[in-house]
């Protein structure tokens, strides 16, 4: 089976990165013939790097994926005076050791693209940790500016940093900033421009003579020995000393590369040295932290209790096993409350104006056109892609909540308290919120799975997401359960939602143990300090995600909707005699196992376009009722409760809709995984349906 999400061979990914980046930059309408200064923004997660990027580029940015990777790539343009700057937002990483895709992307970009300047955005209230990334960056041959962000938050926590002294100690420019309040940005641009454009960096306006951390004495000789062995054999663009250090650190990618560069005999020598120093990484890192301590000793003053403050008080509740769950539950409940009180009514309004009215208008005004034209537009385009578009208000609420949680730092706490449960199904706490998003719509759940920190966890999150019942399925469920089970409707509804979650957990355990075996990524994660959310960042977050969602709705989802509509209308323009109906009839023997007649099978197939379609199709096929109102009265007379239970079970567990399939295809980068998930869910849903039918019969619901 294809393994698209594991790391590409380094050589291939580099070429892709190179060509794609140039292309992106060219497409950002920069004046031709001018020299563009390329600036890379590096930094740990949660240091306000995205805020800085948004502040500088505003809407003048392009968001996509790094070529061949599922890591988000953001490129934007801004101007410093009349010098155009191309800003590349590198993924947030704690180090540059190629332990994850993000780290590989970040360092490949710096090594191969050689940006004119790298800006390291650091959180002034957590400098010790943030400077670790600097200690790694300083080994690379690019000039670095330290953007000391969130100095206001740091002061609130009693941490004062002397930027001038820090700059002296590091030998690189340091710019204090409060990006959320637009402070220090102009100064940052000035420094960047000076560093990029001054011929001689040592004598320019901002002298640049970095002091790098040294190895501890016991490893210096080892490093020297390694350097001698690899000398002259390291191809561009890799710096020899950097390669030697990475070898000593045990960096997997560099080790593989070096094995290819060196002759067999030399490699054996290198290998035996490395073998004797297998745990050198801890000493090297220890040396870096020691260097950081020395640098900060003269530049930072901590007053009072330091970080014992708001964060500590809040975390006593937010990370408590019991209260933490209660807070998370309350946050989730609030999200659903907003969805049902604000999102759903707005969706109703949008449905009226995007689907219902245009459909009616088209039907009356296009009466001169052939019936298939009207059918294509109303039942294909509007019912499929149009309906997807009506989910925008609900998604906006989900994304805004997610952006809010991420921006304040709460997201990491939610991950923390859910980790215990997610662990059982092979996922980490971080994967909980994207899955939770699935209750709104599965598409963003799949898009959000990328927050997982290993390709394996991301894939597992994607494959499991379709089992979270989305609002469309919940709509069908509540409507039909009320029609069939009257007083028991609530129990049936709850039972089926519960079934979905149980199946999700079981499937997670099975996939985790059998299919996606391998090392579960380590759960080591920093919990950032809480801070005030930035409205602009959250707005841009919502905007980018909605735009990506809508772009999909008008392209692949529309195409797929039209195909399924064509199957339901051809050859005679009547669903009862269509190809889709023929498929339903062909599936009738299978359906009999679940007590489902061909009409119900057709309804299931039609739900592939959008889940709520099954109601509309049942309306057409049963008694010709046009709307749900008539349908719910007719159905119980035609279908036994046992069959209805089976139908609802299948519907809840059924294959993902077209939009979700498209999302799986895009996020895993292969049709193989999308089809794998489709087949898996097909089997599971039919098995579930068969079991539900038997249970229904046992309960005496057969007639």
């Amino acid at each position, binding site marked *: 089976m294809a393994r698209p999400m594991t790391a590409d061979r380094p050589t291939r990914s580099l070429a892709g990165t190179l060509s794609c980046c140039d292309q992106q930059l060219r497409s950002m309408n920069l004046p031709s013939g001018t020299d563009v200064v390329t600036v890379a923004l590096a930094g740990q997660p949660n240091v306000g790097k995205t805020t800085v990027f948004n502040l500088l580029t505003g809407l003048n940015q392009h968001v996509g994926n790094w070529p061949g990777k599922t890591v988000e790539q953001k490129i934007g343009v801004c101007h410093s005076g009349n010098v155009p700057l191309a800003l590349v937002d590198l993924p947030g990483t704690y180090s540059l050791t190629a332990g994850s895709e993000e780290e590989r992307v970040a360092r490949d970009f710096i090594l191969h693209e050689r940006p004119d300047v790298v800006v390291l955005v650091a959180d002034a209230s957590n400098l010790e940790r943030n400077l670790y990334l600097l200690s790694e960056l300083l080994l690379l041959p690019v000039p670095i500016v330290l953007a000391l962000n969130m100095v206001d938050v740091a002061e609130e926590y009693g941490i004062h940093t002397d930027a001038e002294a820090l700059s002296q100690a590091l030998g690189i420019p340091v710019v204090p900033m409060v990006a959320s309040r637009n402070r220090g940005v102009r100064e940052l641009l000035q420094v960047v421009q000076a560093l990029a454009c001054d011929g001689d960096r040592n004598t320019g306006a901002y002298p640049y003579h970095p002091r790098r951390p040294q190895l501890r004495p016991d490893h210096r000789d080892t490093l020297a020995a390694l350097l001698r062995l690899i000398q002259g054999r390291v191809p561009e663009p890799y710096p020899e000393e950097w390669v030697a250090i990475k070898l000593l650190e045990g960096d997997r990618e560099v080790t593989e590369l070096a094995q290819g560069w060196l002759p067999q005999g030399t490699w054996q020598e290198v290998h035996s040295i490395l073998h004797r120093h297998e745990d050198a990484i801890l000493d090297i890192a220890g040396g870096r932290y020691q260097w950081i301590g020395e640098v900060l000793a003269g530049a930072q003053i901590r007053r009072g209790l*330091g970080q014992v403050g708001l*964060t500590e008080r809040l975390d006593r509740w937010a990370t408590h096993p019991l209260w933490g769950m209660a807070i998370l539950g309350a946050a989730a409940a609030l999200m659903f409350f907003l969805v049902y009180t604000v999102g759903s009514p707005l969706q109703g309004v949008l449905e009226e104006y995007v689907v219902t009215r245009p459909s009616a208008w088209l039907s009356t005004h296009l009466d001169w056109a052939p019936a298939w034209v009207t059918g294509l537009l109303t039942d294909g385009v509007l019912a499929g892609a149009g309906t997807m578009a009506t989910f925008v208000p609900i998604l906006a609420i989900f994304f805004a909540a997610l952006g809010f949680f991420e921006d304040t730092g709460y997201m990491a706490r939610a991950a923390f308290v859910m980790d215990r449960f997610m662990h059982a199904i092979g996922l980490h706490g971080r994967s909980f919120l994207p899955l939770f998003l699935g209750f709104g719509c599965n598409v963003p759940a799949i898009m959000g799975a990328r927050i997982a920190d290993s390709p394996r966890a991301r894939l597992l999150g994607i494959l499991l997401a379709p089992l979270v019942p989305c609002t469309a399925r919940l709509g069908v469920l509540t409507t039909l359960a009320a029609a069939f089970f009257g007083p028991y409707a609530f129990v049936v509804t709850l039972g089926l939602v519960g079934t979905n979650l149980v199946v999700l957990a079981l499937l997670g355990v099975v996939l985790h143990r059998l299919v996606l075996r391998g090392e579960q990524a380590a*759960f*080591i994660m920093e*919990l*950032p300090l809480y801070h005030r959310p930035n409205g602009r960042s959250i707005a841009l977050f919502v905007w980018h995600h909605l735009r990506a969602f809508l772009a999909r709705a008008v392209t692949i989802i529309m195409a797929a909707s039209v195909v399924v509509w064509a199957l339901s209308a051809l050859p005679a323009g009547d669903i009862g005699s269509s190809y889709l109906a023929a498929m339903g009839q062909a599936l009738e023997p299978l359906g009999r196992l679940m007590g489902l007649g061909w009409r119900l099978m057709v309804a299931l197939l039609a739900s592939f376009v959008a889940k709520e379609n099954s109601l509309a199709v049942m309306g057409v096929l049963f008694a010709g009722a046009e709307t749900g109102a008539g349908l719910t009265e007719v159905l119980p007379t035609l279908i036994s409760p046992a069959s209805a239970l089976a139908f609802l079970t299948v519907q809840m567990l059924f294959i993902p809709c077209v939009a979700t399939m498209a999302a799986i295809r895009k996020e895993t980068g292969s049709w193989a995984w999308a089809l794998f998930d489709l087949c898996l869910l097909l089997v599971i849903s039919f098995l579930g349906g068969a079991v539900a039918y038997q249970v229904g019969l046992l309960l005496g619901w057969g007639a």
Partner: protein
Amino acid sequence: MAWRSRSACVSRRLALDDVTTLLSLGPGQVGTVVGCSGGRGLMGRFAAMGFTPGSRVTVLNNYGRGPLLVLIHGARVALGRGEASRVLVRPEGGGHRG
């Protein structure tokens, strides 16, 4: 072979009787990191997060189930129980020092 040599080396360096894993420290307890074990990937993560020999680590949360929350190099770091069991620490005699 590799395994034997490494574990021999680790035990020689440590006085084993007063060394324990991070997992066994309770909330408020402070320890000094002595070493870590694990594959390359995990060692890299430990290193980047600052679990290097000589670093002081304060346990903030350890409820006996679920991940731990610790303070190390001025940052709050969550780590799973499996990961915590791979960090060797020498506990300080209660309370904060220095």
